[in-house]
């Protein structure tokens, strides 16, 4: 659980602090690296990185949406054929989850390549 939380916080910091300076695919490498270093289990890394990445994107979007009071999210929703504005927020979060989770899983499995078979359970 500790590693789950640690990974969660690390990924979240990565997205907030490094995110503005690099494209999202660099963050994906960063997440994989974090997951590799922390060494949580496969499923745990998948979930932790996914939730962290997705929630951070969701909160960032929501924050921008609230402080700017812009019509843009609504306009973009319509442009993408979505019914209402909240769907684009959720969409951003889901996309973040997918991107984060698979990056995290990649890092975790990569680490497991260097470990003896069955030394760890899937969930640690």
């Amino acid at each position, binding site marked *: 659980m500790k590693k789950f939380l640690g990974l969660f916080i690390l990924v979240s910091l990565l997205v907030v602090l490094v995110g503005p300076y690099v494209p999202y695919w660099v963050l994906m490498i960063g997440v994989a690296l974090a997951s590799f270093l922390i060494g949580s289990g496969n499923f745990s890394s998948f979930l932790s990185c996914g939730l962290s990445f997705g929630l951070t994107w969701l909160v960032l979007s929501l924050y*921008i949406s609230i402080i700017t009071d*812009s019509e843009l999210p609504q306009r973009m929703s319509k442009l993408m054929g979505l019914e209402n504005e909240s769907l684009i927020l959720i969409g951003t979060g889901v*996309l973040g989850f997918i*991107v984060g989770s698979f990056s995290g899983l990649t890092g975790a499995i990569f680490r497991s390549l260097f470990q003896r078979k069955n030394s760890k359970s899937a969930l640690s």
Partner: protein
Amino acid sequence: MKYFGFSLVFLITLGLGIALSIQFGSIPPIGKLMDPNHGFWQNSYSEDMDFEEELDLKNLRNKVKVIYDENLIPHIFADNEKDLYRVQGYITAKHRLWQMEFQTMAAAGRISEIIGPMAIELDRMTRRKGLAFAAETSLQYIQKEHPDTYELVEAYADGVNQYIESLNAAELPIEYKILDYKPETWSAYKSLLLLKYMADMLVGDRDLEYTNLRNQIGQEMLDKLYPDFPEENDPVIEAERIWDFVPLEVSKPDSTGYPDADIFVNTMPQPVEGIGSNNWAVSGTKTKSGNPILANDPHLSLNLPSLWYVMQLSTSTHSVKGATLPGALGIISGFNQDIAWGVTNATRDTRDWYAIQFKDESRTEYLYDDVWVKSTFRIEEIKVKGQSTYLDTVVYTHHGPVVYDKTFRPDRKDVNFSLKWTAHLESNEQKTFLLLNKGKNHDDYINALNHYTSPAQNFVFASKDGDIAMKVQGRFPLKWEGQGKFLMDGKNPDFEWKGFIPNEHNPSTLNPVREFVSSANQHSVDPSYPYYMFDHSFEHYRNRRLNDRLQEMNQMTAQDMMALQFDNFHLHAAEALPVMLSLMDSTEINQLDEMGIKYLSQLKKWNFYAFPNQEEPTLFHVWWEKLHDGVWSKWKTEGKPIVLPNKYQTTKLLLNEPESEIFDNPATSEKETAKSLIKNSFSEMVEKIGEIEKTDKDYTWANYKKTSILHLVPNFKSFSHINVYTGGGAGILNATSERNGASWRMIVEMGEGGEAFGIYPGGQSGNPGSKYYDNLLKKWANGEYVDVSIQSESGISNPLFTTIFNN
């Protein structure tokens, strides 16, 4: 197994990373677009939430201060012109970069690069018209002959480029993110392209259509239905004007053998009806304050981001304010402390077509004056997004580019039509505006106009000194009577333009007796003007309404001028409807159903105004369309372009010759008359309005005409405003039709304490995420204005923010 598992997950992750950052067909790169740190979310900030108080700008000589007022109108205070235009470039790019680049891409025939193969046909047309060729010609000319202008255009370009360099991924305008491309370097050439884009938007010709018409209906009928001057000519330059110059001589060749074969080409799109403008100035004797008042409202395609961008440009020697065109230097329609000016399109046939006879298939030589002359080739490389480059070879003769040929739009292999157009000439329109911006009096205005070639404009003028003036300015070819109305013979020198009308002979007036000057795209002059003047698209209604009102009004104020710009009187309806009603048979009226009776009684009681909540304008509009179609559609042949008589001549015909043979359609067994066509079109109107009532429950004018302000990429519907509630229409002073209308309204009162007002349908920001993207739209639709008077550095109340540019 675990290697397999890793490989699989790794590939999925890699695939995600790549797939989300590239574009599939029209689907944008989703990952890049949704990333809250760089994607569209970052475009949600309005300009006042995210600004710099100080910036470094290279190549400045002195500090420049930019103060934004509450509507995000920037007021630039610079020491000298070079600094001023460098910062104008930077500021314009900051708010309108995507738009200015997109418009010049359109002018250069490069839209396929952005949106893919569906734009190839459009790009080929643009390039074949020679817009890029024209901008290159002008660039070389300005570099050589006007280094002073060139230096300033370069400074502007440098400002734009310093902004582009400063952009990071998050700040990129949203259209780039959605369409997935990046801004390229700006250049002086692009500024010139923008002015050619305006020429293309405003200049048309109907030579090929007229050629077909003459073959079809004969010269006599053509002269009758398409006269050079209308019965009620109320020209731009007052009819009483005495022409005090000796005209250049030009005589019609003895035998003019116009080519007379029917032409089957899909001709290019023309400026739509409704593109036009109003401007006027009234002398101090007619105003309450005793100062001249000037008004201008150019009617163009209603788009977002708005075509216009309002600015104040100040140096230590002058301050000028008004509407700029993003990409061009200075103010285009505006005023300074001493003078004010405005523009309307002065249509004239400045585009002519020549049929070319080539020696053989290679088209390397063409016949001219009995000798074979070498042609030149220009290879147009059209880059296409997602596809290989499209190569188009355009042959140039001394007349100009061969637009229509065997590879482009004809149905016959031997078609080779060369285009001659004043927009291809060497010119420096930019200088006209640079000089007007710092002009002080009537002499300065005339001097500035002398540099102006195309698209020809009616330049209205008023000064602090009390002068009012109007000049029709452009470079007009010197033609013999009737020259260039039809496709001409490219091998016969008799068909060459005979030179150009000197600027001093262009129609103009200064302080006329009637104490006002005005223009609304009508005929420039009275038939007494000693040069041949022809165009197909002169307007016949706004001018007469405007002049009638200006004649009878006195003690005028800026508020009166606002009301006049927003005047919804429908003169065409006022002239045509009584005729149409009088042609309705009383027995027919008795046979009308309930709906028919309702609509008829509405029309009979109509006051001829076109306010948004009225239903009568819809009834009239639909009836007129059905009637016009009923009278003339018999002339149409698939694939053979013609133009139908305009509403003015059609109304005259209904009034004066309702029994005329012209109304009969020989293809039907019965004999049509004006009366029978009126009857049929009325029934068709009743049917159509009945349908609208059923489906929409509403046939009020605003709901029927559906004025729409569309984003420049028409697919971006949610960036547009559809069905804006506002009145007016084509041919009405408030010329707001479905897609065209007053793209900028300006009123300036000269003199001490004079005020200026302006409005346009949009906002200062080009960013659809900003609250300044469309904040002026509602005011515009309601006929309201914002104060755009010239401000001193300390005089701006409620500034939004200030940016200081350091060298």
